[in-house]
């Protein structure tokens, strides 16, 4: 029995369950908790794929940072339970049909997927972190610097929008 595969199915199932629970909870705090479940399961899948660095970042940034931010804001705006989950029935039905279509399309596509050829062959697994570092700071240096600017802008934005009106 391949334990890796078993674990993979386990995490995959957990991620999907977390996602479904998240969008069906009326209480935003519960949604956030189920979101953590999904994030952690995705992190588990990264480990199985040998992407250690992504696992660490996933746990730190998503489960540790973003969800805490969400919970903090929910507490701050003192969000009570939604009176209703969604808009009218018609709207709900239309959205459901649209999404079923999307998913059906995706599912049939992945059923007969043809994978392209690799561009840069790189062994994953053991030396993953080192390779990632080399790629980030050499080949992809420019986008790396640009996202630093982007984070600065996000910081300015959070302060500008969040501070009380003088």
């Amino acid at each position, binding site marked *: 029995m391949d334990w890796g595969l078993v674990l993979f199915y386990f995490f995959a199932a957990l991620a999907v369950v977390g996602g479904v629970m998240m969008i069906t909870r009326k209480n935003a705090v519960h949604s956030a908790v189920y979101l953590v479940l999904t994030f952690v399961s995705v992190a588990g899948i990264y480990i199985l794929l040998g992407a250690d660095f992504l696992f660490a970042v996933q746990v730190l940034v998503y489960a540790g940072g973003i969800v805490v931010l969400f919970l903090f804001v929910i507490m701050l705006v003192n969000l009570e339970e939604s009176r209703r989950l969604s808009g009218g029935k018609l709207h709900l039905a239309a959205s459901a049909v649209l999404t079923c279509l999307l998913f059906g399309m995706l599912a049939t596509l992945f059923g007969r997927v043809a*994978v392209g050829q690799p*561009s840069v062959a790189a062994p994953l697994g053991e030396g993953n972190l080192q390779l990632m570092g080399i790629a980030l700071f050499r080949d992809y*240096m*420019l*986008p790396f610097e640009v996202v630093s600017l982007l984070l600065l802008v996000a910081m*300015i934005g959070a302060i500008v929008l969040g501070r009380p*009106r003088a």
Partner: protein
Amino acid sequence: MSDLAQGLYFLRPELLLSFYGFFLLLLSTLPVFRRWVGGLAALGCLLTLGVVLSFPYQQGMNVFQASDLFFFGNLMILDGMALFFKGAFLLAAILSILISLRYLDTEGVQSGEYYSLICFAVVGMMIMASGTDLLSIFVGLELMAICFYILVGYLRGNRKSNEAAMKYFLLGAFSTGVFVYGASLIYSAKGTTNLYQLAARFEQGDPHSPLLILGMILLTVSLGFKVAAVPFHMWAPDAYEGAPTAVTAFLSTASKAAAFVAFVRIYAVGFLGMRDQWLPLLAVLSVASMTLGNTSALLQDNMKRMLAYSSIAHAGYVLIGIIVMSRPEVDTMQTGMLSLMLYLMIYTFINLGAFSMVVMLRRENLAGDRVVDFSGLHQRSPMAAFAMLVFMLSLAGIPATAGFIGKYYLFAAAMKAHFAWLAVVMVLNSVVSAFYYLRVVWHMYQKPPVDSVRYAVSPGLVAAVGICLAFNLLVGIFPETLIELTRRSILMLGRAG
């Protein structure tokens, strides 16, 4: 490290403007300089514009080899189109800053962060204009988008502005998700996100996998959101109406142009091998945007909302340029490119002018953004009425204005590429659009004024209106210079042309 040195050399405009953004941020912490930050921001954009213009002069127009144009690996390219659009973004930024100077005081939100956010947004756009990889386009797009989310919601005390920011943000973030999902499907089908490598793999005769087509559709949806093409336009009227008018002016011109550059890079370079697949998709988007945009604009009483729908319609016109680029003949393709670049540049000046006029009507206790607020403008300020007249005629595409030149070239390109039916749809739509543009003119010249309060004009606003007015009239009557400039930009293209 000569690659790095060359990269930084090519990146001078972005670097300068980023540092300038930091500088403004620091300066705005000192109350002494607060009054100067806006002017300095305009100056910074002007300096950056100088740096952008210095490239063709230093390098000579035609010495660029295709391989020399790339920098930072294959992530970026500095071709004529990139330079042309970088110039357009900077001009739009300068004009927006000029109309913001006094407007922000009226709204009571004067601060340095506003101007540095505009600078950072332009940096994002410039990176988009140069990006040749879905990754670099993505980070540029996000830098721009996040700046705009903040700028749209900048009037924190204004409920409309808040809601506009919320709506724009949620749909924008959604479209980001769609964009990266599309990128991931393309990556899975072809093993690369680089547009030139993608093009090369099409040439090798790789089969079109359904994943690739779905990826292309998702990218179309996402970029459709960014340019506000029907049916992905629902954010535009609310965001345009709620945002500070100066931001609306910037959003409707520069961000739209930036999204169109990404459109051109992705479709005319990366996806050129699957033009049969994207052609019908874009044709539908184009016709729907033109028709729905113009018919909805007929019903609007709010000037900003009307201009929002008009800008949706104009996105439809510009899409024709991309559709023309699907033709295999090189000169037809170049015609498409020329008409698209020309149109976006001209549209920037018309729309910024029109929004400047809306800014002019804004006073302490009057929003000034309804069409009836323009009533009797002729009696109160003949010059202002004349400027607005020119902008409206130009938007409608009446001969002897710049708007006509833009429309004419798009029309000619569509005819040349044997898309006569698209050209006809465009002309019919222009006729419809003339109704609502001329309605504003009718209000200005035939209706009595609603009140007699003097308009608050500021030097910055007058300068912005003056520049836009001069551009519209000069290009309308002597279009050769601009056309020649655009043509040269295309000749400098690597191999996108």
